[in-house]
Structure formats: C-alpha cells, structure tokens
C-alpha cells in the first residue's frame, strides 16, 4: 500500500500526516538529531485526504480481486480463546499412544460414561442415530454395551434386561484425537459391537466446528470433553443444530470446584516460592453458567445437576501423573511454558497435605461433574403455561394447609 504524503493545508487537523522535522534542534551531544515536533502522525489517511483521481484508479484495479472490509462491519461475536487446542490435541494423542497407562487411568471417564448412559433409562424411546461428541476412547460405547444398570444384582434369577445399546442403532463416536479414539479398536472395532448397535468412529479436524448435517441425530451424548471447548455457547448451539426436533442432548462436563485443592495449593506454593502465580488449573464453567448457556442457545426442558466425585491419591505426584496420562494436563493459552519447577512441586506437596490432606495420609481430589439435559425445540413438546395463567394462589394454598 502506498501512503501519500500530502502538504498539510492550514488548520487541517486530520490531514496532518507529515511530521514537521525540527532540523535546527541541537541536542546535548554534538550530533544533530532529527526530532519530530508534531506527534500527530496518521499513517492511515481517511478517504477524504486522498486525491480523487488516485482513489478512482485504485478502485478500478483492486475491486475485482480484493474484498474490502469496513470498520463498521462487526465480524460476529468475538469468542475468547482460553485453551491451546493444539496442545490439548497433542496431550490426547500421547495419552492414546501409551495404551496400557491410559487404560489404567480410565477410571474417571469410564465411571462418567456409565453415569451419562444411565440417564437413557429415563427416556422411553429408541434412538436410531446417536452422536457421542468428544468420545475420548469410546468410553460411552463401552458403557452402552455393558450390562444394563437396571438389572437387580440381589436377584440374579429375574430376567436380565438387555444392555442400553439395544436402544441405539448407530453410534457415531467423534473426537479430535485419532490415536485416543482408535486406542481400543482391536477389542471394539468399527461396525456391529453388540445388541444391534453399529459403532462408527469419526476423527474431527476441528472439534469446535461440527461437520454434521443439521437435524441428523436423534440423540447427542457428551461425557467429560466439553471443559476444553473455547467457545462453549457456539458449541452448544451447533449441538442444538444437529439434533432433530424434540430430541435430547445429554452431557456431562467438569466444572465449578473441580480440582480446587490442586488449584489452591499450587497457587500458594507459587506465591511463596516465586512471588507470583500462573494458571495451572483451567477456568471452568459453573452450574449457573451451564443452565444459562443451554437456555441461551435454545434448548428446552432443561435439567442441570451436579455431583462430586472425590478420588483419593497417595500423593500429589500420583494425581498429576494420572491427569497427564488421561490427557487432561494443563492447556491454558496463558500458562507458563515448560514443567513446573521442582521447588514449586515440593512446596505444593507439603501445602496440599497440610491444607486438604486426609487423616490416613492420602490426599483427596474433587471432580465436580455438571450433568445437563436439554431438548431441541419442537411444536408438539409440552410447554410451560404463560405467566399469569395460574388459578391457585400459592400463598393461600400453603397458608390453608
């Protein structure tokens, strides 16, 4: 781009583009210095300052190739980037590559997959096409083909109910990390995996932009993967978009006070050792946020609830190793690069124990799981009555009682 230096007309404020150079100014040393006396440098001239003929000439040659953008055209809602998606992808790939270790630490995700799929028992319906979004190592598929959670273990003689997989004809397991997704491909291959459920794996190039057709799924499940999504409102809106009308989304994500013990003790340790803190535990969505988000993107008949899973570890090193093996290490964009220094790790171990440690010498780690169910809007859905249509005054009702 060429900048046209123009002779400034008298009293013109906006076209004062050329700095006036005071050549006579003598600085303290012997050297002659050029010093701009005017600080109003405007390298990007407003259109009014350009000579008209140049402007027309430029337009006719440029217009065909370059797209002109306008300052007043907003480029959509800006989304905050919190997590480094490439780092997260690498961590997941590494987790999947070390299969034995990553199976050992699958306890959290397997347990959550079970609890998410348990919620299907409440919906008396079959789901021809189901999406498992952020499938990790197909934990949900494994939970679905496992024994039905409604089977009574006290009464084994009663006819056992079929596994939940019988309600689903096709399960699409989608994740960004192919190594993690195909980790158990030898025992759980693509295709028919049991009870008439067909498993299809799909690797997502960009997990925040779903490549699926609108209204193409009868159910969307998501277990312990949404806490790494940068643009959660956009993600939920896309989920709503791929669902058919009157179809549910059942999700579970880590949120709120997850790993608050580690967060606080690492903060104290860094504060004392280094005199400042850097983020080591992700910022997480709270329960209130999730309810609001689901409502905002248009889900109906919401259910949001919380449960805490507390896992005891022998020491903080075991906790951090397990998190790493799960592929859940820190991936915040603004984090301090490189490993945590040994001094901080040492201080963290002592503070964690003193602040949160159990009496038997173990340390607890809290995982707060936010469960959510939302339904895609449909005209034949039950709806709340409009405001002011109630006929019984609640106050009278309770006072009479």
């Amino acid at each position: 781009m060429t900048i046209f230096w123009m002779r400034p007309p008298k009293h013109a404020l906006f076209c004062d583009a050329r700095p006036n150079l005071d050549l006579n100014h003598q600085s303290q040393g012997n050297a002659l210095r050029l010093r701009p006396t005017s600080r109003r440098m405007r390298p990007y001239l407003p259109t009014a300052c350009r000579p008209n003929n140049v402007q027309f000439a430029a337009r006719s040659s440029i217009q065909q190739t370059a797209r002109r953008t306008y300052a007043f055209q907003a480029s959509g809602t800006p989304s905050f980037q919190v997590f480094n998606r490439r780092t997260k992808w690498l961590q997941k790939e590494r987790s999947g590559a070390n299969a034995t270790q990553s199976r050992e630490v699958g306890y959290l995700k397997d347990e959550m997959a079970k609890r998410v799929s348990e919620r299907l028992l409440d919906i008396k319906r079959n789901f021809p096409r189901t999406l498992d979004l952020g499938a990790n190592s197909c934990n949900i598929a494994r939970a679905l083909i496992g024994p039905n959670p409604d089977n009574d273990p006290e009464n084994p003689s009663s006819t056992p109910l079929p596994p939940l997989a019988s309600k689903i004809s096709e399960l699409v397991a989608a994740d960004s990390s192919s190594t993690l997704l195909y980790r158990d491909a030898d025992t759980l291959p693509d295709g028919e995996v049991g009870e008439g459920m067909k498993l299809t794996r799909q690797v997502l190039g960009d997990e925040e932009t779903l490549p699926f057709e609108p209204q193409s799924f009868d159910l969307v499940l998501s277990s312990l993967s949404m806490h790494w999504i940068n643009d959660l409102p956009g993600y939920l809106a896309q989920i709503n978009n791929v669902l058919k009308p009157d179809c549910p989304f059942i999700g579970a994500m880590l949120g709120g006070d997850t790993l608050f013990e580690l967060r606080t003790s690492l903060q104290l340790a860094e504060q004392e050792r280094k005199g400042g803190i850097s983020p080591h535990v992700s910022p997480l969505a709270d329960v209130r946020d999730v309810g609001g988000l689901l409502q905002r993107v248009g889900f109906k008949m919401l259910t949001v609830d919380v449960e805490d899973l507390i896992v005891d570890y022998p020491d903080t090193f075991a906790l951090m190793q397990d998190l790493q093996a799960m592929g859940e290490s820190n991936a915040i964009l603004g984090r301090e690069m490189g490993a945590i220094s040994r001094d901080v790790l040492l201080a963290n171990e002592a503070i964690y124990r003193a602040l949160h440690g159990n009496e038997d010498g173990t340390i607890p780690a809290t995982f707060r799981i936010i469960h959510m169910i939302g339904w895609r809007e449909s005209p034949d859905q039950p709806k709340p009555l409009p405001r002011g249509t109630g006929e019984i005054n609640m106050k009278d009702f309770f006072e009479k009682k």
Partner: protein
Amino acid sequence: MHPKPTQVRPIQRMAQAVSKCSAEASLYGKCILADYNSVHKDMCAKEFLKLKDCYLAASKGGK
C-alpha cells in the same frame, strides 16, 4: 518414546524422596497455613530450605 514399565520416571523418584520428609513437609505446610491469606515470596523460606535439604539428602540416598 514412552518409558518402559520397568523404567522409573524422575517424578516417581521425586515422590519417593519427598515421602521421606513428612516431618519437614508438615512444618512448612503449617507455616503457610498460619497466614495463607497474605502469602508473599519467601514467607517460609527457612522451613522450605529445611524441607529441600531433607529432600536432596533423601534423593541422593535413594540412588
């Protein structure tokens, strides 16, 4: 690429060494907990150095 199952990771060696210093660790932890709302740099430097000395001695003995 990945450590073999028999190989001990440095972090595990560190965990073992730290586990031998529980007395010093709890002293340091108590020092921090005494005033954890206003922690500043080197607030418990003395206690930390004791803990670190113990850890260094333990990690040398372990090898």
